[in-house]
C-alpha cells in the first residue's frame, strides 16, 4: 500500500495536535485560558530557531508572506473567539463540535479560491472525517 506524502505529514499533525488536546485540558486546569494561550505562543517562539533558514526567508513575494502572516493572525483570532464563545455562556459540549466544522467551509471554498475539486470517493472520506471530528469533540 502506497501512502501519499501528505498523509505522513498529516499523521504528524494528528499525533502532535492530539497530544496538544490533552495538554490544553491539563494546562487550563492550572491557569486561565488567556494565560494558557500566552504561554502557548512562548512555546511557539521557543522553537523558531529550529525553523530559521537564513535571510533568504524574507525574499519571498510580499503576497505569499502576507498569506502566511494573515493565516497566523486568523488562527489566533479564531482561538480567541472560541474562548470568548465559552466565556459568553456557550456550552463547551456544543461549541467545540460546532467550531470543529471549519474544514467544511474549507471544502466549500476550495473550488472557488484554490480551483481544486475532490473526487466522489474523497468527498465521502471528507464527510466521514467531518462526522468523526464532531463526534470525537463531544
Amino acid at each position, binding site marked *: 500500500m502506497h501512502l501519499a506524502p*501528505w498523509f505522513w505529514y498529516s499523521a504528524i499533525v*494528528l499525533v502532535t495536535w492530539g497530544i496538544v488536546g490533552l495538554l490544553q*485540558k491539563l*494546562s487550563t486546569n492550572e491557569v486561565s485560558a488567556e494565560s494558557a494561550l500566552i504561554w502557548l505562543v512562548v512555546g511557539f517562539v521557543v522553537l523558531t530557531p529550529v525553523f530559521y533558514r537564513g535571510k533568504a526567508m524574507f525574499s*519571498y513575494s510580499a503576497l505569499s508572506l502576507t498569506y*502566511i502572516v494573515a493565516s497566523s493572525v486568523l488562527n489566533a483570532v479564531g482561538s480567541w473567539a472560541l474562548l470568548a464563545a465559552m466565556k459568553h455562556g456557550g456550552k463547551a459540549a456544543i461549541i467545540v463540535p460546532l467550531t470543529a466544522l471549519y474544514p467544511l467551509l474549507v471544502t466549500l471554498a476550495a473550488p472557488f479560491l484554490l480551483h481544486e475539486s475532490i473526487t466522489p470517493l*474523497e468527498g465521502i472520506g471528507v464527510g*466521514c472525517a467531518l462526522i468523526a471530528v464532531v463526534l*470525537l*469533540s463531544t
Partner: protein
Amino acid sequence: MTELSALKSKWFWYSVLCIVCWAGWALLAKMGSYEIPAEASQFLFAWAAVPVALVLLAGRRFKLEKNGKGIFYSIANGVLSAVGSWALFAAYRTNGNTSVITAVTAMYPLISVVLAIAVLRERLTKLHLLGLAFATAAFIIFSF
C-alpha cells in the same frame, strides 16, 4: 425556539467567527505554501502570533498566574502545536488536496480521546466509539 435563541446569543456568533477564522487560516496557509517552504512558513507563523499574545497580556494588565505546572503544560502545548503547524504547512506544500488534508488533520481529537482514556482515565462514550468508526472509515478511504 432553541435554535432561534442560539442565533440571538453571543456565544453562537463567536463560534461562527471561530469557524470563519480557522477556515481562513487553512486556506491562506495553503495559498502561502505554494511559494514558501514549511520551515519558513512556521517561523513567520510563530512570530505573527506574538502581537495577539501581547494584546491578551495587556488585557490581563501584564499579570499571569505563577503556576509552574500550568506554565509547563502551556509551553509544551506551544512546542507541539508548532511541530504540528510545520507538518501542516509541509502537507499543504505536497500539492495534496486542501479539503482532504484539512479534514484529515482536523481529526486530531481522535488521539486526544485515546490519550484522555489512557492518561486521565476518562471513559469512552458511545458517541466517541461512533466517531472512531467514522475516523477509521475516512482513513481507509484516503489510503486508497
